[in-house]
Each structure stands twice: as structure tokens, then as C-alpha cells.
């Protein structure tokens, strides 16, 4: 007899992984002699409830949507992009640079130009490893890692030697016309929280990525290449071109991170502003099973984790959040394998 199968099992892995990481977190809290109930109680009471806190969470979720999408698109295309950190650094730097160039660009176009510059910078930084893979077969994992360091070194050289405001580690402020307005000024809600209109941009990009992946021909080709490069090539897809394209699109998404911090919050580029969002984006994508709409949810989840860890910092070190994130990634990848294997075993048994 065959029961209709509701496909819940893709959600099982992430749910169990989150639960396990919070449980291990509880053990760590116990180990330092605090009560997990109190700490988690504080954590959740501080991250829900008023609109300021919600604004803080949304502000932290915004860059994660971009980097989460960057990771998801590359995974879907069958490639690893570990270079989001470098791509977003180069992108955000260019965003700030264009944002400063008020004299050259008409003020109405300044903000879009800054966004395009950021995205283009990220896309270029992604396309280089893509090209090296397509042309020479050089592994994109190593090359995207290398491009992280090259990007960070290059930008930090330029910031400290060329575009520095003396006695700081940031660039001059962008022109007013390039600023992205904060939501508290627009709506009156989220008083005092830095969340800004980039959030809307991020949500739109998530939806656009969903349409791109599942409702468009290039998206179909991208997924086909990701599932099997040989089959895709046999079906007439230019796999080499796809390789460059996937990493360029992925990098272009990561390059939009600057919109939130540079255009929407501080209004300048600062070294080390990203706080690892490039890497956490990989966790965001994995937990969402590389689904663009799922990424909205998982970004919020990691936004809560990021802001919540600050609120408990007085009781336990805020680095607890990093530990939880790492354990979550570990369990997601391990569990999804175990679940897949178990499903396979069940199928084989019923077939026999």
C-alpha cells in the first residue's frame, strides 16, 4: 500500500540541527555555571517584543539575505563560492567610492550608480575564479578563498593609503543624494534602529532570484548545470559560460551588501565592517536548502541570533552565537546526508 508522501523531510535536517545547536549551547552555558533557562530567556525576551529590537534584527538580516543568495545561487549551479567576503568588500568599497563622487554623477542617479558599482565589483571578483575554472580547470574553492584575501588586502591598501579620513579606518562620507533612507524616518516605526530601505531591496532580490531560478530559461540552465555538468553539456548548454556566469551572478549579489551598511547606515566604507557575513551566508543558504524564499526566513533567524548574542553579552560571552552557528552548519550537512541515506535505504527496502 502506498501512502501519499508529504515532503517534510527537507525541513527535518535544519530543524534538528538548530535544536541540537541550542542544546549544545545550553551545555556550554551550564559549563560556565549559568542557567540556560535564564540566558535563553533573556535572549528571546530581548529579541522579540518591541519595534526597536525588530528593527535591529532586520538590519542584521539584510546583508545575510544578499550573502545567503550568493551562496545558494552558486550551490544551485554546482559551484562553491567561498569568496563572498572578498566580493562584498570590493563591492562595498566601490559603492562608497561612487557614493562620494557627487560632482561627477547627477544626484538622482547617484544611489543607483553606487549600487550598480557595488554589484559590478562583486561580480568581477566572482567572475575571475569562474573564468579560471572554465578556462584552466582551476578549482573555484581555492581561487575564491585567494580572491578573498586579495580583495581585502587591495581594499585595505587603498583605504589606508589613498582614501582615508585621517585618524580613522574609513573613507570620506558619501553624498547625501546617495544615502538610502532609514525606515524609522520614513515610517515612524523601528525608532532608533538602523534598518533601512535596503531591506526592501534584499526582499525583492530574494523574490527575483526565485523567479530567475525556477521560472526563467537561464535559471533552468543554471540548475541543470548544477545537477549534472555532463548531462547539461550533452543537452547543449555551454557549461564553461555557465561557470563564469554563476560565479559572476553570485558575486554580484554579495556585492550588494554595501547598500545596507554604506548607503543605509554609516554612510562611509569602513575596514572590517562585514563581521563575517560572507561566511555566515553559507550557513544561511544551507539552512534554507538553497531556496531563495527560505533564505528570507533563515536570514531572520541568523539576524535574531546575531542581535540576541549582543543582549546576553553581559551574562555569557556573545561569541556563543558563533559557536551555535558553526554547530548548526555542521549538523545540517551531516544530518542531510544521513536523512538522504536513510530515505534511500527505505526506498531500496520497499523496492525489494
Amino acid at each position, binding site marked *: 500500500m502506498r501512502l501519499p508522501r508529504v515532503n517534510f523531510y527537507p525541513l527535518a535536517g535544519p530543524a534538528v540541527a538548530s535544536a541540537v545547536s541550542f542544546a549544545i549551547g545550553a551545555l556550554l552555558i551550564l559549563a560556565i555555571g549559568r542557567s540556560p533557562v535564564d540566558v535563553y530567556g533573556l535572549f528571546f525576551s530581548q529579541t522579540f517584543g518591541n519595534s526597536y529590537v525588530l528593527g535591529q534584527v532586520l538590519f542584521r538580516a539584510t546583508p545575510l539575505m544578499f550573502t545567503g543568495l550568493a551562496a545558494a545561487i552558486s550551490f544551485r549551479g554546482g559551484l562553491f563560492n567561498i569568496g563572498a567576503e572578498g566580493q562584498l568588500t570590493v563591492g562595498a568599497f566601490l559603492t562608497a567610492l561612487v557614493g562620494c563622487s557627487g560632482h561627477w554623477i547627477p544626484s538622482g542617479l547617484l544611489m543607483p550608480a553606487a549600487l550598480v558599482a557595488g554589484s559590478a565589483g562583486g561580480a568581477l571578483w566572482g567572475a575571475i575564479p569562474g573564468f579560471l575554472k572554465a578556462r584552466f580547470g582551476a578549482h573555484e574553492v*581555492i581561487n575564491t578563498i585567494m580572491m578573498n584575501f586579495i580583495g581585502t*588586502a587591495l581594499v585595505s591598501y587603498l583605504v*589606508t593609503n589613498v582614501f582615508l579620513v585621517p585618524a580613522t579606518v574609513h573613507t570620506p562620507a558619501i553624498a547625501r543624494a546617495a544615502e538610502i533612507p532609514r525606515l524609522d524616518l520614513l515610517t515612524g516605526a523601528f525608532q532608533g534602529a538602523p534598518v533601512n530601505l535596503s531591506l526592501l531591496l534584499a526582499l525583492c532580490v530574494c523574490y527575483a532570484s526565485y523567479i530567475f531560478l525556477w521560472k526563467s530559461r537561464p535559471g533552468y540552465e543554471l540548475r541543470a548545470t548544477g545537477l549534472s555538468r555532463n548531462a547539461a553539456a550533452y543537452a547543449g548548454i555551454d557549461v564553461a559560460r555557465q561557470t563564469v556566469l554563476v560565479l559572476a551572478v553570485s558575486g554580484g549579489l554579495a556585492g550588494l551588501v554595501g547598500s545596507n551598511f554604506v548607503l543605509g547606515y554609516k554612510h562611509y566604507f569602513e575596514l572590517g565592517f562585514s563581521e563575517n557575513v560572507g*561566511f555566515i551566508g553559507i550557513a544561511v543558504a544551507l539552512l534554507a536548502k538553497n531556496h531563495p524564499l527560505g533564505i528570507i526566513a533563515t536570514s531572520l533567524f541568523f539576524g535574531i541570533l546575531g542581535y540576541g548574542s549582543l543582549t546576553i553579552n553581559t551574562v555569557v560571552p556573545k561569541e556563543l552565537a558563533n559557536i551555535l552557528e558553526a*554547530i548548526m*552548519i555542521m549538523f545540517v550537512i551531516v544530518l542531510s546526508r544521513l536523512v538522504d541515506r536513510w530515505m534511500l535505504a527505505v526506498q531500496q527496502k520497499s523496492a525489494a
Partner: protein
Amino acid sequence: MDALFTLAFLTQIARISIPYALPALGATFSERGGVVNIALEGILLVSAFATTAAAFVTGSPMFGILCGVICVTLKADQIVSGIAVNLFAVGITKFSCQLLFNSSSNSARIAGIEQWSFLAAVPVLKNPFLITTGLLVVASHILLFRTKFGLRLRAVGEHPEAADSLGVNVARLRYAGLIMCGGLTGLAGAWLAVDQHSFTDGMSAGRGFIALAAMIIGKWTPIGALSAALLFGFAESLTIQLESASRYLQLVQMIPYLLTMIVLAGFIGRSTAPASVGIPYEKEAI
């Protein structure tokens, strides 16, 4: 320029090169066995911390075993789990540092290493880590290319199915590669802590990835890895030494990464990774 090639300069090269050379050597073993280990950075950081907390003997090989459980036994994706280990290392070191030393960024000062006084005449050689590194490179070369173990490890990295069919235990050898990698990287972490007399957060500062680069440029051989590490150490020391050039330090630090990309693209001789590196081995069901 006269003062350039003094003993002090050579000592500085050695100081900088050690934490590149040892993890590069370690990664040579794990990759030869077929496991990509981008967790070098995290292991380096954790072992630097563990050294200041006086427990480094147990610290780093344990991480090798952890990577083994994840990558070999559970066959999880090696790249993603490497990223997770790196994130974990950042978190756990700061967390523990806060607990032990009441600051998440700095540990208390620890004692340095005892200098070997019988070699005092030659200052560079007073550093026991330096001599150990040299000996380990030679030993690794012999182990990898002149012993049964080395042959098997390489076979497992190239063609695990073939090795398996000849009765070689793929999982056990991959574990061995990772544990050696953990141990060697741990030694480098210990050196970092001892050299700076304390732990500071994020003190590995990308060295794990430079080591990965050194291993690739060294074409997956111990002597190559050491040479690349020395080359990077030399370039960095030179920049630090030349007062006027120190403004370009960030650009000089790009060299290892650029070189790696050029080597990987095949412009400097052939550089081929072990054929099965990065692919979990699934034993055929009987």
C-alpha cells in the same frame, strides 16, 4: 642594504615561515590522502589558544580526529565542514578566553620557549621550533615517498576504489592524514602563541590559508611546501625590513594568493591535485 641579510633578518624569515610551513606540511598529508582541509585556519587558532591554556598536546590532534569523523566517517562535504570548523574556532576561542582570562580578545602573558643554549653560537638555531620544522619536512618526505604508508596514503588520494580493492583501508588512511595534519598545524599554533607570549583573538590572521597556498605552490610535496613557505616568509620580512616599503605591506601580502592562482591555472609547470581530493569515499555495498 648591508643590514638586510643579517642573522636577525634570517631569524625573522624563520619566525614568519614556521606557521606557514608546518600547516602546509600537514595539508600535504591530508590532501594526499584525499581530504581537502580548509580548516587549517581554525585549527591554528584553536591550538594557539590551547597552548596559552596549557593543553596543546590534546588540543590539535583532537581536531584532526573531529575532521575525520565529519569528513571520513560521516562523509560530509569537506569544504562546508571546513568553514564550520573555522567559524567554530573563532567562537570557541573567544568564548573560552573570556572565561579563563576575563577578556575575549587577550590572554594573560605566558612564558616563551626555552632557548637551546648549546647552540647559542648560531642564534637562528636556538629556536627549537625551527630545527623541529626542518626535521619534520625531511621525515615527511621520506614517509610520503619512501614508505609503504606513504604509497598507500597517496593511492587513497588518487584512486580510493583501486586502493580499496587491494585491501587498503581507505577510511583509516584518511584519518591518519587528517590527524597528522591536525598535529602539525597544532604545532604551528603553539609556535604562534609562544612567539607572541600570549593569545590574541583572531591571531591566526589568515595564516592557515597562506599555508594552503604554500601547499599548492609546493605541488603537494613536503619540500615544495617548505620552499613556498620560506618564499612567503622572505617576501614579508623584506617588506617589514625596508622602512619605505612597509606602506606596501598589504600589497606584498597579496603575493602568496596571486601566486597560488597563477600556479593553479597551470602557468608555472604542471600542478595537479590528487585525483580524488575532496570526494568522500563511499565503499560499495556488498
